């Protein structure tokens, strides 16, 4: 579903990604973790072309994201993405947030989009808030709406860029629950997160990044059992024993 091949990226002189390669098959859940500044958020933004790469190749569902001729809007319309800071559109009601992509990008009718939006809102347990604005919801609620917005486009895979790191601790679980459910339904997911509990529960593989490189790419059991690299061992002991 997603192939990342030898991807390197620079911001000016500074190299943020070095020769990153990994792949995610259909139905797989891959957690990407690593210390801050390791390039994991940058890597996930390259997958749907929000960040350009200077070297290497990324292919999503058979389409080369890194080809200059690729119709990126079309590709992105079926790759869902959830952001650290939710990024709901603050000038639109929740219903409008859920409908805008369906109407403007997929060409669905307002009624159809509304109905689908309400269904998804029900699924994330927020249908009482349909007519509110994002600013009236808590962070956890906003993030659940953001997941519903991504799902409203009927994505073939989902990218999560630190979906819980901007949340108050007591709201993290309500978001993770939705993600776990999604994973169990067989959604292909690439998740940048520090939530190792989530990784243990649903991930098939864990990718560990450090200083722009993929240092470790292992099955969940391997990774949590005995990571090969020292860096991953240190990282794990730091975040598991706090």
């Amino acid at each position, binding site marked *: 579903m997603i192939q990342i091949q030898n991807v390197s990226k620079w911001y000016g002189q500074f190299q943020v990604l070095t020769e990153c390669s990994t792949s995610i098959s259909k139905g797989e859940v891959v957690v990407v973790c690593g210390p801050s500044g390791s390039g994991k958020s940058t890597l996930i933004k390259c997958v*749907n072309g929000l960040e350009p790469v200077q070297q290497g190749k990324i292919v999503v569902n058979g389409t080369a994201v890194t080809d200059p001729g690729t119709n990126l809007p079309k590709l992105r319309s079926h790759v869902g993405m959830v952001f650290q800071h939710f*990024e709901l*559109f*603050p000038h639109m009601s929740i219903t409008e947030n859920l409908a805008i992509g369906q109407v403007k990008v997929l060409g669905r009718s307002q009624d159809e989009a509304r109905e689908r939006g309400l269904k998804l809102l029900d699924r994330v347990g927020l249908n009482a808030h349909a007519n509110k604005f994002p600013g009236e919801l808590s962070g956890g609620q906003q993030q659940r709406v953001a997941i519903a917005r*991504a799902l409203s486009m009927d994505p073939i895979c989902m990218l999560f860029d630190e979906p819980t790191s901007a949340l108050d601790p007591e709201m993290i679980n309500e978001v993770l629950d939705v993600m776990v459910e999604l994973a169990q339904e067989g959604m292909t997911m690439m998740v940048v997160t520090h939530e190792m509990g989530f990784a243990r529960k649903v991930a098939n593989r864990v990718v560990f990044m450090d200083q722009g490189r993929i240092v470790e790419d292992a099955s969940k059991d391997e990774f949590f059992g005995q990571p090969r690299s020292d860096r991953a061992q240190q990282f794990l002991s730091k975040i598991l024993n706090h």
Partner: protein
Amino acid sequence: MLNNLDFSVIPLALPAIGKGLLFSLQLTIVAMIGGVILGTLLALARLSGGKWLAGAAKVYVDLMRSIPLLMMILWFFFLIPLLTGRPVGQENSAMITFTLFQAAFYSEIMRAGIQSIPRGQVNAALAIGMTYWQSMGHVVLPQAFRNMVPVLLTQTFILFQDTSLVYAIGATDMLKAAENAGMLYGRTVEMYLFVSVIYFAICFSLSMFVKYMNKRIAIIR
């Protein structure tokens, strides 16, 4: 001296002043609408990242902002007939000049407004498959406009007051009409006082309107 004032001439001058006021308002509205449209395009050009497009827009804005409006009004009035070979008329000339001039100021306000929208909002719009222009039209500009309304309207007050500068090319706005009437009846002071009150009334009620608008369209954060 003040008890020599005689306001009885005001009703006589009202039709002329009303006509002048109408022109001032017309000029303000035309320049505001035209300026916002052109200003938005200029702002988008400056933010486009295209070297030539952004450069040209920057030169335009810098030029317009460094020349006094009065001079622009005169230049335009005398230059255009020279270039095109036919006169455009004082009123049309004023409307075109004001629009071009306002566009430069609005574009700077718009640019700041557009830049105030976090990059994440654009990413979110692009991530659901919107094109660059869709993300601008549905996500960035609607938010930017809301943030900018107070500044845009303040700039529009200035514009409304500046319409009095068209006297330089012999167009008759409210101030000029009042001045003419004052001369005619020998009551200049009264006329100036009277139009001051009108300017104040209009600008004050507009600023009340701005306050009301701000409350209504503010984005809940």
